Every structure is written in structure tokens, then in C-alpha cells.
């Protein structure tokens, strides 16, 4: 298969409420930054993928609202609904198809203009589940309980994820919610849905991220050193929560295996230098790290306590602050990709990890991690 690389990234600051910006304004800012980062103009972009969601945007054909701002006028353009990593995967396919040398991918969300519980409730089956009033938080609380019951992960370990990631976010100028917390602070915070305290939950934020993917030929002409796409994988599990063993993530295992195989990675624990995973809730960081094979099943909490996932640890995880540090819903995974690019380039400033030859970025679609998308990025071709 041909090679492709990420040659430009652009992130808006993630904020609670961007009162001064429309969807289009946010997208324009991120695209402008990504183009500047790549040393390109919009004329160098062959096609555009926007990532949005009609429910979150309150608009049918939500991609319409950002077509002009993403520079898609008179270009081939398409729109993926779901997390930005999935949009980026389609963008990669369009690049590798030989149809386009460069693909601009954007993902945007304004949580401030949305009602998260109603929107995620609409992802439940209209006949069997929706009227129960379940939403993403309650679904994930069930998953957290199942995971803790099976693996023995503790509330303190969950809280520690929040302490680490909110702490890391303090060093990231784009993060929404940098905070110096203690485990006690997290455990004392309001109980949202047992076992998830308020500080175990990511905020719902506003933000847009853009990346530029290029084929091998165009990557060679980029301003900065390209960050190579070594492997990608995605996979969906069962829809009904009762049809899954919620305490495990089989679809993540499979998505990761696909990505590792493509990247030629045989022992991820040794070969992955840093990871940006989808920590919408604190337990997820632990659970996903195990699903990704970055540590043994049931061991993530203990390793976390030993500092293994700190910026200076064995495997820095969410050095940027992750989703707990700022969660622009549809853009979240795309931010993970952009943050890994930053790390591999050595541009992460105060939260720069030491060894960053190979990084992993992760995105999620659906309820309680039904569908996963895994990206392996590398410094070397």
C-alpha cells in the first residue's frame, strides 16, 4: 500500500463557550492554522472532508454550514458523521485512492449550543431504550461499574486519571479545563451517575480541529517534517448494551490489531511511545489502554498509580490533557491525532514527552465505546 502523512494541523482553543464564533468561524480558524502549519494555501488542497453531526449541530446536512469556511468551494468534498478519527480515516482512503494528493479533514462541535443528554439519548433505540431516559453518561456509568467489578479497578484509580489529565491540561494552551486537583477533590465532587463523579466526566466544549493528509509525493514538499501514517483500524461492536460484555472492548481490540498489523507492530507495549486516548470519562482511559494492548488486562489502574502514564512515565497518555481537559465532541479524536503529531514533531512545549517515535491516537463512536478507530503515527517513513 502507498504511504501517506499528516503535514498540517490546526486546533482552535477548546472553550466552554465560544460566543464570538459560529461553526464556520471556528472551522475557518482551524483550517487557516492547518494551512499555515503546512505552509500551504487552500489552492494546494485537492479535496475536503468535514466531520460533523446533525444532532449536535441542530441542523440537517450540518456539513453545509462549514463548506465555505473549510475552503471546499469548487472542490470535491464529503462529510463523515461521527468522531473525527473516522472522518480522517475516510480522508486517508481518499488520499490513498490516488484521486487526491492532499486531503483536508475538519471536525467541529459546539457543545455550548447543544443539550448533551437529549442528543446522546437519541442514540438509544427508540422503542426499547430511549424512554428510559438513558444517555451517554448513564451508559458509561454502567460500563464503568462493569469494568471495575471485573478488574477490581478502584474509584481512587479512576480519580487519579482525572487528576493526571486535568493537570496535564494546565500546560496545554488549547485545553479548556486545566486544573490542579487531588484524588479527594474528584471523589468529593458531585456524583453524576454512580460511580462517575463530576470530575470523572469530561466537559462538553466548543472547538474545531483540522488536519492535512498528503500522499507520499506531496508530503515530500511540505514545510515541516511529515508525520507518517503507519496504520489505521476501526471496528464496531454490538449496539444493544445488553448484547456486549460492557467490561471489555472487543471492537477496540480488533481495531487496534488491524492498525498494529498495518504498522508492522508486534508488541505495542514496547513499540508505542505515547498515546492520546478517548478519555470522555476517567475509567475509559484505563479500559481503553487495556483494550489497545498497551498494558495487561486489569493492570492499567495499578500502572497509573505507579506513574507509568505520566508525561515522564513509561507511556505518556493524554499528555495534552485529553478529553477530560476539553471535549469538543465530534472533533475530539481529531484533536488526539493532532496532539500526537505535535508530540512526534517535538512541538508540545511544556507537555512534550521524551521519546516520541511512534504515537497512538484513538477515537470512539456510539454508546459506551461501541465503535473504535485507532491511528498509529510515526516519525519515520
Amino acid at each position, binding site marked *: *500500500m*502507498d504511504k501517506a502523512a499528516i503535514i498540517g494541523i490546526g486546533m482552535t482553543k477548546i472553550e466552554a463557550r465560544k460566543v464570538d464564533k459560529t461553526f*464556520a468561524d471556528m472551522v475557518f480558524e482551524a483550517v487557516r492554522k492547518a494551512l499555515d502549519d503546512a505552509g500551504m494555501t487552500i489552492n494546494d488542497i485537492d479535496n475536503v472532508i468535514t466531520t460533523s*453531526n*446533525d*444532532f449536535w449541530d*441542530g*441542523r*440537517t*446536512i450540518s*456539513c*453545509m*454550514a*462549514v*463548506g*465555505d469556511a473549510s475552503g*471546499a*468551494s*469548487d*472542490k*470535491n*468534498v*464529503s*462529510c*463523515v*458523521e*461521527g468522531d473525527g478519527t*473516522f472522518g480522517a*480515516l*475516510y480522508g*486517508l*482512503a*481518499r*488520499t*490513498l*485512492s*490516488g*484521486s487526491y494528493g492532499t486531503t483536508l479533514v475538519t471536525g467541529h462541535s459546539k457543545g455550548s449550543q447543544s443539550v448533551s443528554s437529549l442528543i*446522546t439519548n*437519541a*442514540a438509544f*433505540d*427508540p*422503542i426499547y431504550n430511549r424512554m428510559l431516559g438513558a444517555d451517554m453518561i448513564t451508559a458509561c456509568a454502567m460500563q464503568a461499574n462493569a469494568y471495575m467489578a471485573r478488574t477490581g479497578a478502584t474509584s481512587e484509580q479512576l480519580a487519579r486519571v482525572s487528576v493526571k489529565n486535568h493537570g496535564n491540561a494546565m500546560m496545554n494552551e488549547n485545553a479548556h479545563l486545566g486544573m490542579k486537583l487531588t484524588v479527594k477533590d474528584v471523589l468529593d465532587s458531585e456524583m453524576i451517575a454512580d460511580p462517575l463523579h463530576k470530575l470523572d466526566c469530561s466537559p462538553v466544549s466548543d472547538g474545531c480541529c483540522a488536519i492535512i493528509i498528503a500522499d507520499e509525493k506531496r508530503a515530500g514538499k511540505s514545510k515541516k517534517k511529515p508525520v507518517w501514517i503507519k496504520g*489505521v483500524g*476501526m*471496528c*464496531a*461492536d*454490538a*449496539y444493544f448494551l445488553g448484547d456486549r460484555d460492557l467490561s471489555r472492548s*472487543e*471492537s477496540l481490540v480488533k*481495531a487496534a490489531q*488491524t492498525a498494529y498489523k498495518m504498522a508492522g507492530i508486534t508488541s505495542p507495549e514496547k513499540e508505542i511511545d505515547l498515546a492520546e486516548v478517548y478519555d470522555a470519562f476517567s475509567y475509559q482511559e484505563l479500559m481503553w489502554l487495556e483494550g489497545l494492548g498497551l498494558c495487561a488486562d486489569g493492570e492499567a489502574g495499578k500502572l497509573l498509580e505507579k506513574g507509568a502514564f505520566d508525561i515522564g512515565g513509561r507511556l505518556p497518555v493524554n499528555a495534552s490533557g485529553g478529553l477530560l481537559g476539553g471535549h469538543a465532541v465530534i472533533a475530539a479524536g481529531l484533536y488526539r491525532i493532532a496532539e500526537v503529531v505535535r508530540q512526534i514533531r517535538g512541538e508540545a512545549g511544556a507537555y512534550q514527552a521524551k521519546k516520541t517515535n511512534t504515537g497512538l491516537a484513538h477515537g470512539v*463512536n*456510539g*454508546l459506551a465505546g*461501541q*465503535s473504535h478507530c485507532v491511528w498509529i503515527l510515526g516519525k519515520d517513513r
Partner: protein
Amino acid sequence: MAKRVAIVGTGQTFHKSHRPDVNGQELINEAVQAALADAGLTMTDINAIIIGNMDHFEGINYVDCWSVDGSGGLMRPIIKITTGGTTGCTIAIGGYHMVASGMFEKVLVIGWEKNSESDTSGAITTAFDPVWDRRVFAGAISGLAAEAQAYMARYGATDRDGARVSVRDRRHALNNPYAQLRKEVTLEEVLASPMLADPIHLLDICPRTDGACAVIMASEDSAEKITATPDWIWGTGNRHSYAYLGDADYGRLTSMERTSKQIFKKAGIREPRKEINVIELYQPYSFGGIIWIEDMGIVPHGKGAEYIWSGATDMGGELPINPSGGPISTNPIGATGLIRCAEAAMQVMGKAEGRQVPDVNFAVSTGFGGCWWTDMILHGKNKPNY
């Protein structure tokens, strides 16, 4: 190295205004099973799935995740692409790129819609900018009427010209057992039907439909092993031209013009009218059948109606358009563009039965939607020479 891609199987449901006999997942599965049977494949052969629909119509968020029981997406890569009316064609273009990339060998593409459970006009109204446009254009019909009026003002066309297109598509639908509306109408009946938004009469426009369509795409490595008559994708393209209603050039479809030029140039097609044998046009209302063939370069601007009246686009004519009956006969929105793709593929593969156009070398399928957006695919009997 990019792969050549072919459609190796298609399937669609029997389309009706209301399918209370199935839920959404079952509706999807009906099309998926039909496509797998057509290709002689099983679900285990499929490496990835692309699904599309309009989630505000269904009232279900994350349809890719919700539908895995019906789509075959369980423990497989599945992705959702949505672009409004163009969705069906967009996901077909998605399937092409996913296979051409070399990442996936066989990709199942699914479009669907259960319009009977939705308020389509209400949902479409939310497509427009909430501050500037939403209160001006309600639903789809008013915008289409503005386009038709602008064209009529420019070229002197009449609602009789529009009616002629409607008569054609509704007659063609008689040959399509899957079509929802299979009733021949006369010019007079179209003109006498209720005026919805001048000049669009009730019989000038598409119905609301429950239905699904599935298409299987495979790379060159396996396409010819699956079928002796694959439908080769020669080119795909699209344009989304603007976001605000006031920016459109009413009376012509600039997105169609630009997309056609891109695709025909790549395929070396200089005289589309002679080189293309059949078109499945996403034409939700009759006047689009006049205006858009001009923008596609089939006939010069202002000559669309004359060409339609000549019978050239009827079955048996120089360039039959919508042998299936088109969206005017069947319109499950998320599937409508994919049905065009499937029907064009069936024409190339020689599987179109009672609606087959003889000796199809090149076929074109299109998607229309968003706001005056065009998606387009060029299908060919022979392998692309590039």
C-alpha cells in the same frame, strides 16, 4: 498503488410509501441480503461498510452504530457519511475510495430511509442557516420552484415542458417492479394536479418513500472473479457550491457543470450525448430533468426542453434517462442516490431486465441535494484505461 474498482452486486427493497412490516434495521437488511445474493457473496466476504441516511429524518443519532444488526456491521469497520440528498451517491463515492485505497478489498455501501416515520419538510428546513435563511425557504419544494422559475424566465420554458419530463419518468417506472409509484400519467393530469409551489404541480415532484439500497464494490483483484460483468467505476466527483441561499445562481446547476467537466475530461469523453448510453439522474422534480442535462453538457443551455420533447430521453431514444422511473417514482432520500448508482450498474451489467437499455458502454448516475450540490459517478463496461 491505487486499485481499480467495480460494482459487483446491487440490491434494493421493494419501495413503498410505508413499510410497517419492517423496522429500520430489517429494511436495511433486506437490501443487504439482496446485494449479497446478487454478488454471490456472504457477509464474511465484506471488509468494511459505509452507511448513509438523514438522521434528523429518522430521529436516530449515530445510525452506523444503531444499525449493526441489520447492516452486518457487527465487529466490522463501519462508517457513516451524510450529505443530505446527495447521501446515496456520496456513500457510493465513499465505497469507491475505500476500495481504491487498497485498505479494503470489498466494501458494502448502504443507503436507506424510512420517510413514513418523519417530517421531511420540517427536517429539511433545519438545513438552512437559522438566522438568515431558515424562515425564508421551508422544505425542499420552494427552493426547487425558485430554480424552475429562474430557468423559465431565462429561456421561456413552461410548466408543460416540466410535465413532459414527469410523464416520461412515470411511464418508465412501469418497467421497474421495485418502484413505488407505477402509474402512467398524461400531460393534462400533471398540469391539472394541485400546484404546490409555482410552477411545481404535485405530479411534478417526488414522493416520500420507505426503502433501502445496497451496493457491493470490489477491487480489480477480485471483481472479475465475483462476476463476469462487473460495472467499472471510471470516475467520481462532486461539488458543493455554496452555503447561503442568496449565493446560488438560480436557473442552472453550476455544481453539475463543474462535476461533469471534471469526470468527462478524466475519462476522455468529448461528446457526452453520443458516448453516454444511459443516465440515472437524481431528479426529484421534473424541471431538473430539463435544466440539469444542459449543465451536464448533454445539450446546450436553453435546449433541454426541446431535447426532452424529441423523445431522445425516452426508452428507445438516443439517450434514455431514468429507465427506473427515477426519484419522481421512488424517493427514500438516503437511498435515492444509491439507487441511481445501482440502477446504472445494473444497466452496465446487463441486469436491468424490463428496463434494460441495449448495449450500455457508459452510464452516468448522479446525486442531488444539500443546496444545489451534485455528486456524480461514471460507470463503464470496460476497465478504465487509467
